[in-house]
């Protein structure tokens, strides 16, 4: 039981895919222009990650080692196609904003890394929880980055077209924050703050 809970929670903070392992950077930077975009992107990734983990765990003993990568790619691509069609049908406005980053979930390193490192070695239930946990970790990271960028870049917060602060927060918005350079800076500074917060008095583990 303890193992199951740990499989679920590790993805949220301890092994957060974005801030801890630094995977899946392309969609993280590209779709975190606003909280709402990050939320929908996160939702799509949670769906794909959970179901691909379940299916890969289910077939892990039947798939020969040599062809496992193409097999995983086909499984992941099938679920991405489902997400693509569903989002196109039900949330067309968001589908338009996220654009090619929906089909590009198929090459998201997080999903592939979890398939290879976890789902191919663990039972179905553990893999499902791992997928949900990692997906939630990804979504929360996107929401945090999106929050910083949206507040600084538009001086406001919006949800499905309604702004939460009426006329805004009363400072001149720094447009650069919702442009690409702002994404890199927000990510860099948040990672730096994370290092500062978790810094041990002794020598830290060297990264990169």
């Amino acid at each position, binding site marked *: 039981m303890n193992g199951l809970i740990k499989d679920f929670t590790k993805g949220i903070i301890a092994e957060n895919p974005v801030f801890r392992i630094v995977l899946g950077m392309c969609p993280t930077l590209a779709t975190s222009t606003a909280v709402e975009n990050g939320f929908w992107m996160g939702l799509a990734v949670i769906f794909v990650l959970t179901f691909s983990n379940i299916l890969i765990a289910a077939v892990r003993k039947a798939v020969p080692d040599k062809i496992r990568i193409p097999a995983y790619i086909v499984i992941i691509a099938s679920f991405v*196609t489902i997400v693509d069609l569903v989002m196109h049908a039900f949330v067309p406005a968001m589908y338009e904003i996220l654009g090619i980053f929906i089909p*590009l979930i198929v*090459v998201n390193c997080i999903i592939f890394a979890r398939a290879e490192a976890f789902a191919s070695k663990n039972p179905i239930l553990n893999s499902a929880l791992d997928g949900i946990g990692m997906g939630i970790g990804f979504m929360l990271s996107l929401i945090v980055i999106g929050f910083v960028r949206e507040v600084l870049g538009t001086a406001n917060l919006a949800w499905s077209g309604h702004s939460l602060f009426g006329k805004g927060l009363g400072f001149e918005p720094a447009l650069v924050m919702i442009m690409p350079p702002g994404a890199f800076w927000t990510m860099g*500074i948040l990672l730096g703050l994370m290092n500062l917060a978790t810094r041990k008095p002794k020598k830290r583990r060297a990264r990169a």
Partner: protein
Amino acid sequence: MTYLYILLGGLLINNFIFQRFLGICPFLGVSKRVETAAGMSMAVIFVMTMASAVTWFFQHMLLVPFGVEYLQTIVFILVIATLVQFVEMVVLKTSPVLYQALGIYLPLITTNCAVLGVALINVVENYNLIESVVNGFASACGWSLAILLFAGIRERWEITDIPDVLKGFPIAFISTGLMSISFYGFQGLFQSLFK
């Protein structure tokens, strides 16, 4: 003129790293030294140009005539994966040194979103075969330009006094942001060129 537009656009304006956010993982992963970055760049240029051509044929000869465009993601990723396997075999046979240097990143070109990204952009922009190939080549060159510049900057970190908490990924992102904003300077040039 269209080709020049696509070429310069892919190289400077819609740069894959600085503007479109595609291929960030290998950008951060193999940019530690200029030589490895150059090797990776060559592999990416080759794969992306080939992938643009091959996916165009699959899109316009197979998916559109049979009305199965919804299979696009699956077909494209399989085509790219096969192509990458082929490139991997060629590199392994011709240059074991380069193969060793690129390490795990060569098989991971498959999960390099830049390759699938350029194939999807070609479809979205409705490019014909030659435009697709030019776009694939230009985008890959833009990616390579970015990673080579970045590897050069990164080698300088060795002798720079960076705050302890910013070492590694944080400073990498901040530098990339600064490079990104400097690439905005090209937009003025571009507008006056194609007025």
